[in-house]
């Protein structure tokens, strides 16, 4: 965790009900300065409701949200000046050009007109979109649209950036580019609050992860911390150069259960060291060559599934 003392987001006992349904139930957490905080949860867990309350879009029934010390309910304009928000895909004006979108966003934050043009060009150049600056966004690919979406949200250099599923529906190249942008912005001092369905994305990007389930915080920890909590069972991932009957391995009682993953097998065990030695002997006896052999601890996905398993 970075700069532990400075809380950029402070959420206290936040609650939101829609009729009889409690979407968010007394959640409390804090995000510190320069942190990348991932907010995970299954569909309908309360992620979007939470992010909408944090960004001042909807009013909670009870509780407080402080953005860099400013109460977003009592002083929404001042709090919103400090943040940039990137809602889910398709939230820019497609009839405007990339540059016009960024300039429009900048005007809302009171950036002087003279300064705005240069600023928009600089951001577009950074994203590799300067040559397309004057093209309507409707002619852009999904990935490029998302880049313009991010560019519009950071024109005022916000201290805190909210991203709602920033890589959803993007191809691998675009996903990588967005992740690189997020990392670079964080390195320059921007605090990031990120919601995602992509567990691996949270694993590689986030300093800490909060998991919400049924409107309540199920866990908040670092990705490694969460994995450690669920590490009582490990696994060994193997594949051989030719098809093989694993019944002999199962009979060894070293394997708790096995799972087929494409052309690989994942063997769950509580003694990976012994299992690896056994597998090496097995390969030698059957004249097999390993094409994959990897000892895996619990993944963040395992932790996520266990924490939210009532939902699945």
């Amino acid at each position: 965790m970075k700069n532990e003392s400075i809380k950029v987001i402070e959420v206290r006992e936040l609650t939101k009900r829609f009729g009889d349904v409690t979407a968010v139930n007394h959640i409390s957490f804090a995000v510190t300065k320069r942190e990348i905080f991932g907010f995970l949860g299954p569909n309908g867990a309360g992620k979007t409701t939470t992010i909408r309350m944090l960004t001042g879009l909807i009013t909670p029934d009870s509780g407080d949200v402080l953005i860099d010390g400013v109460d977003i309910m009592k002083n929404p304009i001042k709090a919103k000046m400090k943040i940039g928000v990137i809602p889910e895909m398709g939230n820019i004006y497609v009839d405007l050009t990339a540059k016009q979108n960024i300039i429009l966003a900048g005007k809302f934050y009171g950036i002087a007109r003279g300064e705005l043009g240069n600023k928009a060009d600089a951001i577009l150049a950074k994203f590799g979109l300067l040559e397309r600056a004057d093209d309507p966004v409707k002619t852009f690919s999904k990935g490029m649209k998302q880049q313009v979406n991010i560019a519009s949200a950071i024109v005022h250099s916000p201290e805190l950036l909210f991203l709602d599923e920033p890589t959803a529906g993007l191809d691998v190249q675009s996903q990588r580019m967005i992740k690189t942008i997020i990392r670079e912005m964080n390195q320059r001092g921007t605090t990031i609050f990120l919601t995602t369905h992509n567990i691996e994305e949270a694993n590689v990007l986030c300093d800490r992860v909060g998991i919400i389930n049924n409107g309540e915080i199920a866990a908040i920890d670092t990705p490694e911390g969460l994995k450690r909590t669920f590490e009582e069972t490990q696994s060994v991932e193997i594949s051989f150069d030719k098809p093989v009957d694993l019944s002999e391995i199962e009979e060894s009682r070293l394997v708790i259960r096995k799972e087929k993953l494409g052309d690989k097998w994942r063997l769950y065990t509580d003694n990976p060291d012994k299992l690896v030695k056994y597998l090496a002997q097995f390969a030698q006896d059957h004249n097999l060559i390993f094409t994959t052999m990897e000892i895996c601890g619990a993944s963040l996905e395992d932790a996520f599934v266990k924490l939210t398993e009532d939902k699945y």
Partner: protein
Amino acid sequence: MPLRNFNRPFFRGIAVVTEKNIRLYYTKPPVIIFGFLFPLFMFLAFYLGKEIDFYVFFPGLLAMFLFFIASSVGPLITPWEKQAGTYERLLSFPVSITTIILGDCAAGMIFGIMINVVVLAVGLITLNYCLNIMILCLGMLLGAFCFSSLGVSLASPSVQNPSYVMMFSSIIRFPLIFISGIFIPLEDLHGLGRMLCYFSPITYMVDIFNFSLRGQSNIALIVDFAALFVFSLTFVYLANRTHKRNLMRGL
């Protein structure tokens, strides 16, 4: 809304929202059809083949154009934005709902005035009016804002689909035209008809145009302005309330 909220970001927000609306929505087909072509065809259907004193009819025509044009943009902006997914982004900017509503009203008002000035110019060239420019300008400004705010307030009840909004707004707008004294002069209306006409803001607009162009009016000028002002406040209040209530619908 507390007075301290009427500060620089508040007015800046209105200006930016207005600019965005002008840039994006003035040339959309439904705005052209419902704002410009509709009153034109309505006028032609009423005027052609009949012996109508155009000198007397023109102030009503001017009010009808202002009404249709100023109220054509407002109902569509929010549904379009919600459909395109841009409304959530707009709300995340440092602006309040009131700012967005007033920006929408301003866009409709400017559109109404722009087209109305052209229609007025044609009338002034072809007809020999004795113009009271100050009353005309003040009236047009207030009337355009009033009609535009009516349009914005109509956006709220069914905000997810623009075509539903157009249907709903037509149900409200057309009766207001027919009870306003445009097609039947106010002095010829009696009983219930006469009573109903006071519930249409267009009645007061027609009266102001009649006064500022022909020097004749049926209602005291102060009442015309006061009525338009009260209607405007009511529509902005209704728009504010219903937009807030329906904020999350369609997001």
